[in-house]
Protein backbone atom coordinates (compact mmCIF):
# COMPACT_ATOMS: atom_id res chain seq x y z
CA UNK A 1 0.00 0.00 0.00
CA UNK A 2 1.20 3.48 -0.80
CA UNK A 3 1.37 6.19 1.85
CA UNK A 4 0.54 8.89 -0.64
CA UNK A 5 -0.61 8.77 -4.24
CA UNK A 6 -1.24 11.75 -6.50
CA UNK A 7 -3.00 11.19 -9.81
CA UNK A 8 -3.10 14.08 -12.26
CA UNK A 9 -3.35 16.65 -9.53
CA UNK A 10 -3.87 20.25 -10.70
CA UNK A 11 -4.50 23.51 -8.93
CA UNK A 12 -5.59 26.72 -10.62
CA UNK A 13 -6.01 30.15 -9.11
CA UNK A 14 -8.32 31.67 -11.69
CA UNK A 15 -6.40 31.41 -14.94
CA UNK A 16 -3.09 30.75 -13.23
CA UNK A 17 -2.10 27.11 -13.22
CA UNK A 18 0.08 26.63 -10.15
CA UNK A 19 0.15 22.84 -10.29
CA UNK A 20 -0.19 21.04 -13.59
CA UNK A 21 -1.12 17.40 -13.75
CA UNK A 22 1.18 16.13 -10.99
CA UNK A 23 1.40 12.38 -10.44
CA UNK A 24 3.69 10.52 -8.10
CA UNK A 25 3.43 8.22 -5.12
CA UNK A 26 5.32 7.49 -1.92
CA UNK A 27 5.82 4.03 -0.47
CA UNK A 28 5.23 3.56 3.25
CA UNK A 29 8.39 4.50 5.15
CA UNK A 30 9.91 6.37 2.25
CA UNK A 31 11.66 9.70 2.78
CA UNK A 32 11.27 11.98 -0.21
CA UNK A 33 11.90 15.61 -1.04
CA UNK A 34 10.24 18.02 -3.42
CA UNK A 35 12.63 20.57 -4.82
CA UNK A 36 12.35 23.34 -7.34
CA UNK A 37 13.14 27.02 -7.69
CA UNK A 38 10.98 29.66 -5.97
CA UNK A 39 7.47 29.65 -7.39
CA UNK A 40 7.70 26.02 -8.45
CA UNK A 41 4.52 25.23 -6.50
CA UNK A 42 6.01 23.32 -3.57
CA UNK A 43 3.98 25.03 -0.86
CA UNK A 44 0.84 24.88 -3.01
CA UNK A 45 1.43 21.17 -3.43
CA UNK A 46 1.67 20.79 0.35
CA UNK A 47 -1.47 22.89 0.79
CA UNK A 48 -3.38 20.62 -1.58
CA UNK A 49 -2.09 17.47 0.14
CA UNK A 50 -2.99 18.77 3.63
CA UNK A 51 -6.37 20.08 2.50
CA UNK A 52 -5.66 23.75 3.14
CA UNK A 53 -6.48 24.17 -0.56
CA UNK A 54 -8.72 21.89 -2.57
CA UNK A 55 -7.46 20.40 -5.79
CA UNK A 56 -8.91 21.77 -9.03
CA UNK A 57 -8.74 18.33 -10.57
CA UNK A 58 -7.07 15.00 -10.03
CA UNK A 59 -7.13 12.45 -7.27
CA UNK A 60 -5.34 12.19 -3.95
CA UNK A 61 -5.00 8.97 -1.94
CA UNK A 62 -3.49 8.42 1.49
CA UNK A 63 -2.88 4.85 2.67
CA UNK A 64 -5.34 3.64 0.06
CA UNK A 65 -8.06 6.05 1.15
CA UNK A 66 -9.38 8.65 -1.28
CA UNK A 67 -8.89 11.98 0.50
CA UNK A 68 -9.35 14.31 -2.48
CA UNK A 69 -12.35 15.94 -0.83
CA UNK A 70 -11.61 15.22 2.84
CA UNK A 71 -11.29 18.20 5.17
CA UNK A 72 -7.93 18.98 6.75
CA UNK A 73 -8.84 17.75 10.23
CA UNK A 74 -9.98 14.39 8.81
CA UNK A 75 -6.69 13.98 6.95
CA UNK A 76 -4.85 14.64 10.22
CA UNK A 77 -6.98 11.99 11.94
CA UNK A 78 -6.03 9.55 9.15
CA UNK A 79 -2.35 10.03 10.06
CA UNK A 80 -1.11 13.16 8.32
CA UNK A 81 1.14 15.72 10.02
CA UNK A 82 2.41 19.01 8.66
CA UNK A 83 4.83 21.78 9.55
CA UNK A 84 4.76 25.22 7.96
CA UNK A 85 7.34 27.27 6.14
CA UNK A 86 6.09 30.39 7.94
CA UNK A 87 5.84 29.56 11.63
CA UNK A 88 2.25 28.98 12.74
CA UNK A 89 2.09 28.53 16.49
CA UNK A 90 -0.24 29.84 19.17
CA UNK A 91 1.74 32.91 20.27
CA UNK A 92 -0.30 33.85 23.34
CA UNK A 93 -0.20 30.32 24.76
CA UNK A 94 2.74 28.76 26.57
CA UNK A 95 5.13 26.25 25.03
CA UNK A 96 3.51 23.52 27.11
CA UNK A 97 -0.02 24.48 26.03
CA UNK A 98 1.09 24.45 22.41
CA UNK A 99 2.47 20.94 22.72
CA UNK A 100 -0.54 19.69 24.70
CA UNK A 101 -2.83 20.94 21.92
CA UNK A 102 -0.77 18.99 19.40
CA UNK A 103 -0.87 15.87 21.60
CA UNK A 104 -4.66 15.97 22.18
CA UNK A 105 -5.40 16.80 18.53
CA UNK A 106 -5.59 13.22 17.29
CA UNK A 107 -7.14 11.67 20.38
CA UNK A 108 -10.78 11.52 21.51
CA UNK A 109 -9.68 13.57 24.54
CA UNK A 110 -9.62 16.64 22.33
CA UNK A 111 -13.36 16.99 22.98
CA UNK A 112 -13.18 16.49 26.76
CA UNK A 113 -14.62 19.41 28.69
CA UNK A 114 -14.17 18.46 32.32
CA UNK A 115 -10.65 17.05 32.54
CA UNK A 116 -7.61 19.19 33.09
CA UNK A 117 -5.67 19.46 29.88
CA UNK A 118 -2.44 18.17 31.44
CA UNK A 119 -4.03 15.50 33.66
CA UNK A 120 -3.89 12.59 31.22
CA UNK A 121 -1.80 9.48 31.67
CA UNK A 122 1.63 9.93 30.18
CA UNK A 123 0.88 13.20 28.45
CA UNK A 124 3.38 15.25 30.48
CA UNK A 125 6.04 12.58 29.98
CA UNK A 126 5.40 12.69 26.25
CA UNK A 127 5.60 16.51 26.29
CA UNK A 128 8.89 16.34 28.19
CA UNK A 129 10.20 13.74 25.75
CA UNK A 130 9.50 16.11 22.86
CA UNK A 131 10.71 19.32 24.50
CA UNK A 132 13.72 18.16 26.51
CA UNK A 133 16.04 17.33 23.59
CA UNK A 134 15.46 20.83 22.20
CA UNK A 135 16.16 22.51 25.56
CA UNK A 136 12.59 23.80 25.63
CA UNK A 137 11.28 21.86 28.64
CA UNK A 138 12.59 24.39 31.16
CA UNK A 139 10.96 27.16 29.14
CA UNK A 140 7.59 25.39 28.99
CA UNK A 141 5.85 28.11 31.01
CA UNK A 142 6.90 30.86 28.60
CA UNK A 143 4.51 32.19 26.01
CA UNK A 144 5.59 31.19 22.53
CA UNK A 145 5.67 34.83 21.42
CA UNK A 146 8.41 35.46 24.01
CA UNK A 147 10.88 32.79 22.84
CA UNK A 148 13.56 33.21 20.18
CA UNK A 149 12.84 32.69 16.49
CA UNK A 150 15.10 29.66 16.41
CA UNK A 151 13.16 28.08 19.27
CA UNK A 152 9.90 28.87 17.50
CA UNK A 153 11.17 27.04 14.41
CA UNK A 154 12.01 24.01 16.54
CA UNK A 155 8.52 24.17 18.04
CA UNK A 156 7.07 24.32 14.53
CA UNK A 157 8.70 20.99 13.70
CA UNK A 158 7.90 19.11 16.91
CA UNK A 159 4.29 20.31 16.79
CA UNK A 160 3.92 18.37 13.54
CA UNK A 161 5.64 15.28 14.97
CA UNK A 162 3.82 15.26 18.32
CA UNK A 163 0.89 13.11 17.25
CA UNK A 164 3.17 10.45 15.72
CA UNK A 165 1.81 10.93 12.20
CA UNK A 166 2.34 8.18 9.65
CA UNK A 167 2.88 10.68 6.85
CA UNK A 168 4.66 13.96 7.56
CA UNK A 169 4.91 17.00 5.33
CA UNK A 170 7.79 19.27 6.32
CA UNK A 171 7.79 22.60 4.49
CA UNK A 172 11.26 24.20 4.65
CA UNK A 173 11.85 22.68 8.10
CA UNK A 174 15.37 24.03 8.52
CA UNK A 175 14.68 27.60 7.41
CA UNK A 176 15.48 29.78 10.42
CA UNK A 177 17.55 27.15 12.22
CA UNK A 178 21.18 27.94 12.99
CA UNK A 179 23.60 26.04 10.72
CA UNK A 180 24.92 23.94 13.59
CA UNK A 181 21.35 22.87 14.45
CA UNK A 182 20.68 21.36 11.03
CA UNK A 183 22.50 18.05 11.68
CA UNK A 184 20.46 17.48 14.84
CA UNK A 185 17.29 18.09 12.83
CA UNK A 186 18.41 15.56 10.23
CA UNK A 187 19.05 12.96 12.90
CA UNK A 188 15.64 13.70 14.48
CA UNK A 189 13.92 12.86 11.20
CA UNK A 190 16.17 9.83 10.64
CA UNK A 191 15.25 8.58 14.11
CA UNK A 192 11.52 8.48 13.25
CA UNK A 193 10.11 4.98 13.19
CA UNK A 194 10.74 2.98 10.03
CA UNK A 195 7.19 3.14 8.70
CA UNK A 196 6.90 6.90 8.98
CA UNK A 197 6.71 8.44 5.54
CA UNK A 198 8.27 11.86 5.10
CA UNK A 199 7.82 14.39 2.31
CA UNK A 200 9.81 17.58 2.67
CA UNK A 201 10.79 20.67 0.77
CA UNK A 202 14.00 22.52 1.34
CA UNK A 203 16.34 24.94 -0.31
CA UNK A 204 19.15 23.42 1.71
CA UNK A 205 20.62 20.66 -0.46
CA UNK A 206 22.43 19.18 2.55
CA UNK A 207 19.01 18.50 4.07
CA UNK A 208 17.56 17.18 0.82
CA UNK A 209 20.46 14.87 0.05
CA UNK A 210 20.95 13.97 3.71
CA UNK A 211 17.37 12.78 4.18
CA UNK A 212 15.71 11.98 0.90
CA UNK A 213 15.94 8.60 -0.75
CA UNK A 214 14.01 10.04 -3.65
CA UNK A 215 13.81 13.56 -5.02
CA UNK A 216 10.92 15.03 -7.01
CA UNK A 217 11.58 18.16 -9.05
CA UNK A 218 8.91 20.76 -9.79
CA UNK A 219 9.34 23.69 -12.14
CA UNK A 220 6.56 26.26 -12.57
CA UNK A 221 3.99 23.79 -11.36
CA UNK A 222 5.14 21.02 -13.62
CA UNK A 223 6.59 17.66 -12.74
CA UNK A 224 10.08 17.60 -14.26
CA UNK A 225 11.84 14.58 -12.88
CA UNK A 226 12.11 12.12 -10.03
CA UNK A 227 14.80 9.78 -8.93
CA UNK A 228 17.47 9.06 -6.38
CA UNK A 229 19.55 12.04 -5.28
CA UNK A 230 22.37 10.85 -7.55
CA UNK A 231 20.08 10.54 -10.55
CA UNK A 232 18.63 13.98 -9.93
CA UNK A 233 22.08 15.53 -9.56
CA UNK A 234 23.02 14.03 -12.90
CA UNK A 235 19.76 14.89 -14.68
CA UNK A 236 20.44 17.39 -17.48
CA UNK A 237 16.99 18.97 -17.26
CA UNK A 238 17.41 19.60 -13.54
CA UNK A 239 20.89 20.99 -14.04
CA UNK A 240 19.48 23.31 -16.65
CA UNK A 241 16.79 24.60 -14.30
CA UNK A 242 19.10 25.07 -11.38
CA UNK A 243 22.22 26.22 -13.18
CA UNK A 244 20.71 27.75 -16.26
CA UNK A 245 23.22 25.98 -18.49
CA UNK A 246 22.20 23.89 -21.45
CA UNK A 247 24.66 21.04 -21.48
CA UNK A 248 25.50 18.76 -24.32
CA UNK A 249 24.08 15.24 -24.12
CA UNK A 250 27.47 13.59 -23.99
CA UNK A 251 28.54 15.80 -21.14
CA UNK A 252 25.49 15.01 -19.04
CA UNK A 253 25.90 11.29 -19.46
CA UNK A 254 29.53 11.28 -18.38
Amino acid at each position, binding site marked *: MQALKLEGLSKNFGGLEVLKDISFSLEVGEHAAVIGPNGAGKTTLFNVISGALSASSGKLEMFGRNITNASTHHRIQYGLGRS*FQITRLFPDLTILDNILLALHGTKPSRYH*MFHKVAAYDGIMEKAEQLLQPLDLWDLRGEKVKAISYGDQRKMEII*MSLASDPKLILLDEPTAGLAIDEVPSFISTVKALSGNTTVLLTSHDMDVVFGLAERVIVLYYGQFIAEGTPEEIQANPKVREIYLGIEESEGHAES
Partner: protein
Amino acid sequence: MGGDRVMNTRPDKDAVKNGKAKKTGVVAGLILLGVLLVALPPFMNPYGESMITQILIFSVFAMGLNIVVGYTGLFSMGHAAFFGVAGYTAGIMMVHYGIESFWIIAPASIVLATLFAALFGIISLRVSGLYFLFVTLALGELLHSVAWKWRSMTGGADGLTGIPYPSLGLPFIMNATHFYYLVLIIFVVCVGLLYRIVKSPFGSALQGIREDEHRMRHLGYNTWMYKYLAFIIAGFFSGISGMLFASFANVMAPEHLGVHTATLAVLMIILGSDRVFFGPIIGAAIVLFLQYYASTFAPERWPLILGAVFVLSVMFLRGGISAHLIKLWNKMGSHHASTKT
Protein backbone atom coordinates in the same frame (compact mmCIF):
# COMPACT_ATOMS: atom_id res chain seq x y z
CA MET B 1 14.51 43.84 27.21
CA GLY B 2 17.04 42.88 29.88
CA GLY B 3 14.21 41.93 32.18
CA ASP B 4 12.85 39.48 29.63
CA ARG B 5 16.18 37.70 29.43
CA VAL B 6 16.29 37.25 33.20
CA MET B 7 12.77 35.88 33.13
CA ASN B 8 13.67 33.39 30.41
CA THR B 9 16.62 31.95 32.21
CA ARG B 10 15.08 31.99 35.65
CA PRO B 11 15.43 28.52 37.16
CA ASP B 12 12.43 26.28 36.97
CA LYS B 13 12.07 25.83 40.73
CA ASP B 14 11.45 29.50 41.37
CA ALA B 15 8.75 29.66 38.74
CA VAL B 16 6.99 26.66 40.28
CA LYS B 17 7.29 28.16 43.78
CA ASN B 18 5.96 31.46 42.52
CA GLY B 19 3.07 29.70 40.82
CA LYS B 20 2.21 27.82 44.01
CA ALA B 21 2.32 30.97 46.13
CA LYS B 22 0.08 32.69 43.62
CA LYS B 23 -2.33 29.76 43.69
CA THR B 24 -2.62 29.76 47.48
CA GLY B 25 -3.15 33.53 47.34
CA VAL B 26 -5.99 33.14 44.87
CA VAL B 27 -7.58 30.28 46.84
CA ALA B 28 -7.39 32.26 50.10
CA GLY B 29 -8.95 35.26 48.36
CA LEU B 30 -11.74 33.12 46.96
CA ILE B 31 -12.55 31.58 50.35
CA LEU B 32 -12.65 35.02 51.95
CA LEU B 33 -14.92 36.29 49.18
CA GLY B 34 -17.15 33.21 49.53
CA VAL B 35 -17.54 33.70 53.29
CA LEU B 36 -18.33 37.37 52.72
CA LEU B 37 -20.97 36.59 50.12
CA VAL B 38 -22.64 34.02 52.38
CA ALA B 39 -22.49 36.11 55.57
CA LEU B 40 -23.29 39.54 54.18
CA PRO B 41 -27.08 39.66 53.62
CA PRO B 42 -28.14 40.26 57.26
CA PHE B 43 -25.81 43.28 57.40
CA MET B 44 -26.79 44.74 54.08
CA ASN B 45 -29.58 47.09 53.14
CA PRO B 46 -31.92 45.91 50.36
CA TYR B 47 -30.09 48.02 47.79
CA GLY B 48 -26.78 46.38 48.52
CA GLU B 49 -28.33 42.95 48.42
CA SER B 50 -30.09 43.66 45.16
CA MET B 51 -26.91 45.11 43.69
CA ILE B 52 -24.89 42.02 44.51
CA THR B 53 -27.66 39.74 43.24
CA GLN B 54 -27.60 41.62 39.97
CA ILE B 55 -23.82 41.47 39.72
CA LEU B 56 -23.87 37.70 40.26
CA ILE B 57 -26.59 37.24 37.62
CA PHE B 58 -24.77 39.30 35.01
CA SER B 59 -21.44 37.68 35.92
CA VAL B 60 -22.87 34.32 34.80
CA PHE B 61 -23.93 35.95 31.53
CA ALA B 62 -20.62 37.74 30.92
CA MET B 63 -18.41 34.81 31.94
CA GLY B 64 -20.42 32.42 29.79
CA LEU B 65 -20.25 34.82 26.86
CA ASN B 66 -16.52 35.17 27.41
CA ILE B 67 -16.14 31.53 26.33
CA VAL B 68 -17.03 32.80 22.86
CA VAL B 69 -15.63 36.35 22.98
CA GLY B 70 -12.41 35.99 24.98
CA TYR B 71 -11.46 32.33 24.69
CA THR B 72 -12.53 31.65 21.10
CA GLY B 73 -12.08 35.21 19.84
CA LEU B 74 -15.53 35.49 18.23
CA PHE B 75 -17.33 38.76 18.77
CA SER B 76 -20.94 37.77 19.34
CA MET B 77 -23.38 40.62 19.72
CA GLY B 78 -26.29 38.20 19.77
CA HIS B 79 -26.13 36.32 23.05
CA ALA B 80 -28.60 38.68 24.70
CA ALA B 81 -31.10 36.80 22.53
CA PHE B 82 -30.63 33.66 24.63
CA PHE B 83 -30.63 35.67 27.85
CA GLY B 84 -33.93 37.13 26.70
CA VAL B 85 -35.45 33.88 25.44
CA ALA B 86 -34.86 32.27 28.84
CA GLY B 87 -36.13 35.34 30.68
CA TYR B 88 -39.29 35.58 28.61
CA THR B 89 -39.88 31.82 28.83
CA ALA B 90 -39.62 31.91 32.61
CA GLY B 91 -41.76 35.05 32.77
CA ILE B 92 -44.46 33.77 30.41
CA MET B 93 -44.68 30.44 32.25
CA MET B 94 -45.14 32.21 35.56
CA VAL B 95 -47.33 35.15 34.50
CA HIS B 96 -49.51 33.54 31.82
CA TYR B 97 -49.59 29.90 32.86
CA GLY B 98 -49.19 30.13 36.61
CA ILE B 99 -46.33 27.61 36.68
CA GLU B 100 -44.13 28.78 39.52
CA SER B 101 -41.95 25.78 40.30
CA PHE B 102 -38.28 26.54 39.82
CA TRP B 103 -37.73 22.87 38.96
CA ILE B 104 -39.92 23.21 35.86
CA ILE B 105 -39.17 26.79 34.89
CA ALA B 106 -35.40 26.58 35.10
CA PRO B 107 -34.88 23.54 32.85
CA ALA B 108 -37.55 24.66 30.38
CA SER B 109 -36.20 28.17 29.94
CA ILE B 110 -32.54 27.13 29.84
CA VAL B 111 -33.18 24.32 27.36
CA LEU B 112 -35.14 26.64 25.10
CA ALA B 113 -32.38 29.26 25.23
CA THR B 114 -29.78 26.58 24.42
CA LEU B 115 -31.87 25.32 21.48
CA PHE B 116 -32.08 28.85 20.13
CA ALA B 117 -28.30 29.10 20.47
CA ALA B 118 -27.92 25.83 18.56
CA LEU B 119 -30.07 27.25 15.76
CA PHE B 120 -28.52 30.72 15.67
CA GLY B 121 -25.03 29.23 15.83
CA ILE B 122 -25.58 27.28 12.61
CA ILE B 123 -26.67 30.46 10.86
CA SER B 124 -24.08 32.89 12.22
CA LEU B 125 -21.01 30.60 12.09
CA ARG B 126 -21.32 30.38 8.33
CA VAL B 127 -19.41 33.66 8.30
CA SER B 128 -16.54 35.05 10.36
CA GLY B 129 -15.05 38.28 11.62
CA LEU B 130 -17.12 41.42 11.26
CA TYR B 131 -19.81 39.52 9.32
CA PHE B 132 -20.26 37.17 12.25
CA LEU B 133 -20.73 40.15 14.55
CA PHE B 134 -23.43 41.60 12.29
CA VAL B 135 -25.28 38.33 11.75
CA THR B 136 -25.44 37.71 15.51
CA LEU B 137 -26.58 41.29 16.02
CA ALA B 138 -29.27 40.92 13.35
CA LEU B 139 -30.57 37.64 14.81
CA GLY B 140 -30.80 39.27 18.24
CA GLU B 141 -32.72 42.20 16.78
CA LEU B 142 -35.04 39.74 15.07
CA LEU B 143 -36.09 38.32 18.44
CA HIS B 144 -36.25 41.85 19.81
CA SER B 145 -38.89 42.72 17.24
CA VAL B 146 -40.78 39.47 17.88
CA ALA B 147 -41.00 40.44 21.56
CA TRP B 148 -42.09 43.88 20.48
CA LYS B 149 -44.92 42.65 18.20
CA TRP B 150 -46.22 39.58 20.05
CA ARG B 151 -48.12 41.70 22.56
CA SER B 152 -50.47 39.01 23.83
CA MET B 153 -47.57 36.93 25.10
CA THR B 154 -44.78 39.39 25.76
CA GLY B 155 -46.61 42.58 26.65
CA GLY B 156 -44.94 44.26 23.71
CA ALA B 157 -43.10 47.50 24.36
CA ASP B 158 -44.53 47.75 27.89
CA GLY B 159 -42.70 44.58 28.76
CA LEU B 160 -43.85 41.48 30.56
CA THR B 161 -44.51 42.71 34.07
CA GLY B 162 -45.23 41.12 37.42
CA ILE B 163 -42.80 38.21 37.15
CA PRO B 164 -42.56 36.69 40.65
CA TYR B 165 -39.78 34.71 42.30
CA PRO B 166 -39.95 31.04 41.40
CA SER B 167 -40.98 28.56 44.05
CA LEU B 168 -38.46 25.96 45.16
CA GLY B 169 -41.14 23.72 46.68
CA LEU B 170 -39.76 24.44 50.14
CA PRO B 171 -41.99 25.41 53.07
CA PHE B 172 -41.34 29.14 52.85
CA ILE B 173 -42.24 31.91 50.46
CA MET B 174 -39.20 33.19 48.66
CA ASN B 175 -38.07 36.68 49.50
CA ALA B 176 -35.21 38.78 48.17
CA THR B 177 -32.68 37.23 50.56
CA HIS B 178 -33.66 33.66 49.68
CA PHE B 179 -33.41 34.59 46.03
CA TYR B 180 -29.98 36.07 46.68
CA TYR B 181 -28.82 32.72 48.08
CA LEU B 182 -30.36 30.83 45.17
CA VAL B 183 -28.49 33.09 42.76
CA LEU B 184 -25.29 32.70 44.78
CA ILE B 185 -25.49 28.90 44.63
CA ILE B 186 -26.17 28.90 40.90
CA PHE B 187 -23.36 31.42 40.40
CA VAL B 188 -20.87 29.22 42.24
CA VAL B 189 -21.92 26.14 40.26
CA CYS B 190 -21.63 28.06 36.97
CA VAL B 191 -18.21 29.47 37.82
CA GLY B 192 -17.06 25.95 38.73
CA LEU B 193 -18.37 24.52 35.45
CA LEU B 194 -16.83 27.32 33.41
CA TYR B 195 -13.50 26.90 35.18
CA ARG B 196 -13.45 23.19 34.34
CA ILE B 197 -14.31 23.92 30.71
CA VAL B 198 -11.64 26.60 30.36
CA LYS B 199 -8.91 24.35 31.79
CA SER B 200 -9.92 21.29 29.74
CA PRO B 201 -8.56 20.14 26.37
CA PHE B 202 -11.74 21.62 24.89
CA GLY B 203 -11.10 25.02 26.48
CA SER B 204 -7.49 24.88 25.42
CA ALA B 205 -8.58 24.15 21.86
CA LEU B 206 -10.83 27.22 21.87
CA GLN B 207 -7.81 29.38 22.69
CA GLY B 208 -5.85 27.66 19.96
CA ILE B 209 -8.60 28.57 17.50
CA ARG B 210 -8.43 32.18 18.67
CA GLU B 211 -4.67 32.19 18.06
CA ASP B 212 -4.51 30.32 14.75
CA GLU B 213 -7.52 28.43 13.47
CA HIS B 214 -5.70 27.19 10.37
CA ARG B 215 -3.00 25.51 12.46
CA MET B 216 -5.64 23.96 14.70
CA ARG B 217 -7.16 22.20 11.69
CA HIS B 218 -3.68 20.92 10.89
CA LEU B 219 -3.46 19.43 14.39
CA GLY B 220 -6.66 17.48 13.79
CA TYR B 221 -9.27 19.78 15.28
CA ASN B 222 -12.64 20.24 13.61
CA THR B 223 -12.57 23.94 14.39
CA TRP B 224 -16.11 24.66 13.20
CA MET B 225 -17.49 22.16 15.70
CA TYR B 226 -15.53 23.82 18.53
CA LYS B 227 -16.80 27.27 17.64
CA TYR B 228 -20.33 25.91 17.39
CA LEU B 229 -20.14 24.16 20.76
CA ALA B 230 -18.63 27.28 22.36
CA PHE B 231 -21.49 29.32 20.92
CA ILE B 232 -24.04 26.91 22.41
CA ILE B 233 -22.29 26.73 25.79
CA ALA B 234 -22.32 30.53 26.00
CA GLY B 235 -26.00 30.40 25.06
CA PHE B 236 -26.63 27.94 27.89
CA PHE B 237 -25.06 30.27 30.47
CA SER B 238 -26.81 33.29 28.95
CA GLY B 239 -30.02 31.33 29.45
CA ILE B 240 -29.30 30.62 33.12
CA SER B 241 -28.59 34.29 33.65
CA GLY B 242 -31.72 35.44 31.80
CA MET B 243 -33.95 33.01 33.68
CA LEU B 244 -32.69 34.44 37.00
CA PHE B 245 -32.87 38.02 35.74
CA ALA B 246 -36.61 37.75 34.93
CA SER B 247 -37.43 37.09 38.58
CA PHE B 248 -34.85 39.54 39.84
CA ALA B 249 -36.18 42.45 37.77
CA ASN B 250 -39.84 41.30 37.88
CA VAL B 251 -40.01 42.37 34.27
CA MET B 252 -38.74 41.41 30.81
CA ALA B 253 -38.65 44.01 28.07
CA PRO B 254 -37.76 43.70 24.36
CA GLU B 255 -34.46 45.50 24.99
CA HIS B 256 -33.31 42.51 27.05
CA LEU B 257 -33.14 40.45 23.85
CA GLY B 258 -31.36 42.93 21.67
CA VAL B 259 -28.31 45.00 21.07
CA HIS B 260 -28.65 47.07 24.26
CA THR B 261 -28.18 44.12 26.60
CA ALA B 262 -25.68 42.42 24.27
CA THR B 263 -23.48 45.51 24.31
CA LEU B 264 -23.66 45.70 28.07
CA ALA B 265 -22.42 42.10 28.39
CA VAL B 266 -19.59 42.63 25.91
CA LEU B 267 -18.63 45.82 27.77
CA MET B 268 -18.43 43.89 31.03
CA ILE B 269 -16.05 41.46 29.35
CA ILE B 270 -13.84 44.12 27.78
CA LEU B 271 -13.76 46.33 30.88
CA GLY B 272 -13.02 43.43 33.20
CA SER B 273 -10.62 41.67 30.78
CA ASP B 274 -11.43 38.95 28.29
CA ARG B 275 -8.16 37.12 28.99
CA VAL B 276 -8.62 36.71 32.74
CA PHE B 277 -11.05 34.04 33.93
CA PHE B 278 -12.61 36.20 36.67
CA GLY B 279 -12.35 39.38 34.60
CA PRO B 280 -16.00 39.54 33.50
CA ILE B 281 -17.13 39.48 37.17
CA ILE B 282 -15.14 42.64 37.87
CA GLY B 283 -16.44 44.11 34.62
CA ALA B 284 -20.03 43.28 35.61
CA ALA B 285 -19.54 44.90 39.02
CA ILE B 286 -18.12 48.10 37.54
CA VAL B 287 -20.74 48.45 34.81
CA LEU B 288 -23.64 47.78 37.19
CA PHE B 289 -22.33 50.13 39.92
CA LEU B 290 -21.89 52.86 37.32
CA GLN B 291 -25.35 52.16 35.97
CA TYR B 292 -26.82 52.35 39.47
CA TYR B 293 -25.16 55.64 40.39
CA ALA B 294 -25.81 57.14 37.00
CA SER B 295 -29.47 56.20 37.22
CA THR B 296 -29.86 57.81 40.65
CA PHE B 297 -27.97 61.01 39.91
CA ALA B 298 -28.19 61.57 36.17
CA PRO B 299 -30.27 58.91 34.42
CA GLU B 300 -30.28 60.73 31.09
CA ARG B 301 -26.47 60.82 31.11
CA TRP B 302 -26.03 57.04 31.51
CA PRO B 303 -25.12 56.31 27.88
CA LEU B 304 -22.65 59.21 27.95
CA ILE B 305 -20.99 57.95 31.13
CA LEU B 306 -20.87 54.40 29.81
CA GLY B 307 -19.33 55.57 26.56
CA ALA B 308 -16.73 57.70 28.34
CA VAL B 309 -15.74 54.83 30.65
CA PHE B 310 -15.41 52.52 27.69
CA VAL B 311 -13.21 54.94 25.73
CA LEU B 312 -11.04 55.68 28.76
CA SER B 313 -10.56 52.02 29.61
CA VAL B 314 -9.62 51.16 26.04
CA MET B 315 -7.13 54.05 26.01
CA PHE B 316 -5.56 53.58 29.41
CA LEU B 317 -6.41 50.08 30.58
CA ARG B 318 -5.66 47.95 27.55
CA GLY B 319 -6.52 44.33 28.13
CA GLY B 320 -9.05 45.15 30.86
CA ILE B 321 -8.91 46.17 34.48
CA SER B 322 -8.27 42.66 35.80
CA ALA B 323 -5.17 42.27 33.67
CA HIS B 324 -3.78 45.43 35.27
CA LEU B 325 -4.78 44.33 38.76
CA ILE B 326 -2.92 41.06 38.21
CA LYS B 327 0.14 42.93 36.98
CA LEU B 328 0.03 45.10 40.10
CA TRP B 329 -0.36 42.00 42.29
CA ASN B 330 2.59 40.29 40.59
CA LYS B 331 4.68 43.42 40.99
CA MET B 332 3.94 43.50 44.70
CA GLY B 333 4.71 39.78 44.90
CA SER B 334 8.05 40.03 43.10
CA HIS B 335 8.96 43.11 45.13
CA HIS B 336 8.21 41.14 48.27
CA ALA B 337 10.28 38.20 47.03
CA SER B 338 13.26 40.34 46.01
CA THR B 339 13.41 42.07 49.41
CA LYS B 340 13.49 38.64 51.06
CA THR B 341 16.45 37.30 49.09
